[in-house]
């Protein structure tokens, strides 16, 4: 008997040359324009997003359209490439609406078979429009879709959605409502910024009051499109978590080599060496899990839902642990506002709730691997 969970073909878990080139381009851009000091300064103005940075990243490097086919104005690349971009964005805790616009909204639109969706997709691919789904960031694949928005007739929408990520940067909102999925212009909605735990992925409440929307899909198609998008986004979020964790480990190792206490670098104390060695192991493992998820999504592997659930169940914890160790092993400096460690801790903790907690994803693993609860 073959287990229900047997993988089909061995996933390609490495990075291709083209992916490494893409990484180099994104990393260079972020190093030049998105250092931690700049990120923090912007966050403190209450407007964390940097539209000029987004334009270069999305349009000039062409990362926004990686998931969009060429005939719709995209790059026709795929999830493996988008995962590499997210690794770099995670490493820089970059405040750009990539996960929301270039992944979640893009995947939803790719699941809507309408001309309006196609037109909007090419705007997203070119980076000229930022779009975010009006759903809470915590919405997970496999969870029932909340429908707080009602259509009061003729596509005029009324309702309120909390904890919508990147809504403050969006020109268009994708709104699931009782009668289907709608595109709503941001100026027709009331977007109220919230004070979020994560300073680099801002949240807002989106309130609609008889707001006009363009219908993109009927309720069944909308549910399927959103479910597919949540799966992709959860799988790719694992790569953001890997990049974030790797930054935390690298910084911690560098700091502990240079910081002297008791006439020795603190990094020569075995208690700390072992903690960093364990973290290194965790990050190496998280990378394999995240690569497997990206590859499964890219190839449409039948076991992709399981592979994504495994990656999320694992990588969330690693990112949080890496960020927590980073704060602790930096000592007092790790508790300061100037040192960027807190930006990473806040993102890591928020990421561990985004798109389903590790516990939620373990529940999905239980279903896919046929290991039912008592």
């Amino acid at each position: 008997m073959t287990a229900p969970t047997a993988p089909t073909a061995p996933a390609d878990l490495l990075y291709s040359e083209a992916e490494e080139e893409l990484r180099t381009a994104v990393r260079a851009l972020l190093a030049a324009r998105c250092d931690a000091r700049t990120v923090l300064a912007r966050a403190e103005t209450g407007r964390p997003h940097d539209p000029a940075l987004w334009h270069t990243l999305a349009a000039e490097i062409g990362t926004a359209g990686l998931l969009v086919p060429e005939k719709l104005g995209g790059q026709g690349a795929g999830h493996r490439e988008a995962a590499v971009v997210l690794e770099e964005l995670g490493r820089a805790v970059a405040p750009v609406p990539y996960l929301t616009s270039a992944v979640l909204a893009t995947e939803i639109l790719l699941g809507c078979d309408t001309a309006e969706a196609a037109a909007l997709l090419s705007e997203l691919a070119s980076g000229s429009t930022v779009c975010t789904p009006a759903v809470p960031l915590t919405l997970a694949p496999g969870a029932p879709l909340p429908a707080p928005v009602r259509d009061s007739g003729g596509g005029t929408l009324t309702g309120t959605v909390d904890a919508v990520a990147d809504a403050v940067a969006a020109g268009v909102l994708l709104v699931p409502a009782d009668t289907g999925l709608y595109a709503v212009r941001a100026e027709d909605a009331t977007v109220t910024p919230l004070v979020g735990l994560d300073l680099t992925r801002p949240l807002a409440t989106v309130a609609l009051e008889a707001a006009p929307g363009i219908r993109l899909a009927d309720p069944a198609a909308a549910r399927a499109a959103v479910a597919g998008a949540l799966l992709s986004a959860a799988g790719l979020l694992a790569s953001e978590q890997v990049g974030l964790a790797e930054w935390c480990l690298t910084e911690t190792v560098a700091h502990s080599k240079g910081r002297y206490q008791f006439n020795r670098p603190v990094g020569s104390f075995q208690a700390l060496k072992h903690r960093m060695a364990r973290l290194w192991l965790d990050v190496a493992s998280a990378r394999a899990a995240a690569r497997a998820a990206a590859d499964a999504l890219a190839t449409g592997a039948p076991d992709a839902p399981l592979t994504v659930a495994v990656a999320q169940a694992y990588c969330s914890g690693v990112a949080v642990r890496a960020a927590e160790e980073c704060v602790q092993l930096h000592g007092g400096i790790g508790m300061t506002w100037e040192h960027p460690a807190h930006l990473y801790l806040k993102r890591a903790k928020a990421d561990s709730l985004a798109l389903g907690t590790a516990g939620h994803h373990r529940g999905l693993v239980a279903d896919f691997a046929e290991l039912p609860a008592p």
Partner: protein
Amino acid sequence: MTTGATPTTPEALRARTRDLLTAHPPARTDRTAFLRARFDAGLAWVHYPPGLGGLGAPRTLQAVVDAELEAAGAPDNDPRRIGIGLGMAAPTILAYGTEEQKQRFLRPLWLGEEVWCQLFSEPGAGSDLAALATRAVLDQDAGDWIVDGQKVWTSSAHNARWGILVARTDPALPKHQGITYFLCDMHAPGVEVRPLRQITGEAEFNEVFLTGVRIPDTHRLGAVGEGWAVARTTLMNERVSIGGMRIPREGGMIAPVAAAWRERPELRTHALHQRLLELWVEAEVARLTGERLRQQLAAGQPGPEGSGMKLTFARLNQEISGLEVELLGAEGLLYEDWTMRRPELVDFTGRDAGYRYLRAKGNSIEGGTSEILLNIVAERVLGLPPEPRDDKDTAWKDLSR
């Protein structure tokens, strides 16, 4: 043997393997005869040189050969039974042996005609192997070395024909410098093997007493006093050989636990469910990490992940087998058999959960403890500073023991 360079592409190896199978159909060939023919065709370990069981091919291509042989139902040399020879003695002999030593030892080793053991650890030297005290003194007239000392935890010594041995040849030098590496005949007078019963009740390992044992100088491996470098080759290979196998999803120790969970709903509890899922996920991630490592090697970009695989498997095996005992409830309180046995091989499957739980405790001790491996990762992979130490430049005889 054909003249000229042997082609070593996957296709060439596949063709060569099929030729072997045609000339020696496994169904009608005696096991040992088949293994000999395989060795002589260079398909034993394809990365070894021609004439020594290989073809000088990339190591990763062994998988191509193995897959063909397995599909044809060919016998294998039972790598589990001869693991120490295959994984440690052979690569060290290949790297440091004279031509005569390679010709003499590698073929019977691979065929399983001669089992090897590793005479490294001593009562006073485990993690700190270079502190070893077993003495080897050259008898100038006979040209033999005379060895006295005690080794411990020696797996398979009771089955072994040969042992790889490190001994001190100059106590006046600092501990790493006065060591020499030997190939020890386990049947030589003065070698006494005593079973050492272990936590599982059986005696997989032994104490080995060496009293006036004569080792001819032709059985020295590497130069006199250079044994530490030779031993490091052995130790590196010991750690590499772990995690080299491809396992399927839900393979390894997680398999019996998952099966019990599915087949016996009455055992399920919520607390165990969460732990099972966590470990299932970690086992899957470890499988993927091993797969990624293999892909890196195959692509010629070896990553440092290998250093971590043994650590990961040791921890997972222990946690999973611990969970399994608990899951079984009253049955988990029972143990198959405490009779003292002398096993030929370590076999995790086909035994009960209690055995797995107890035997897995050795995974974080044998082949370098997890603490030592974490030091290696921290220092060699992350480049963290070493602990200050004062034993490196002191003569071995002046160290505190």
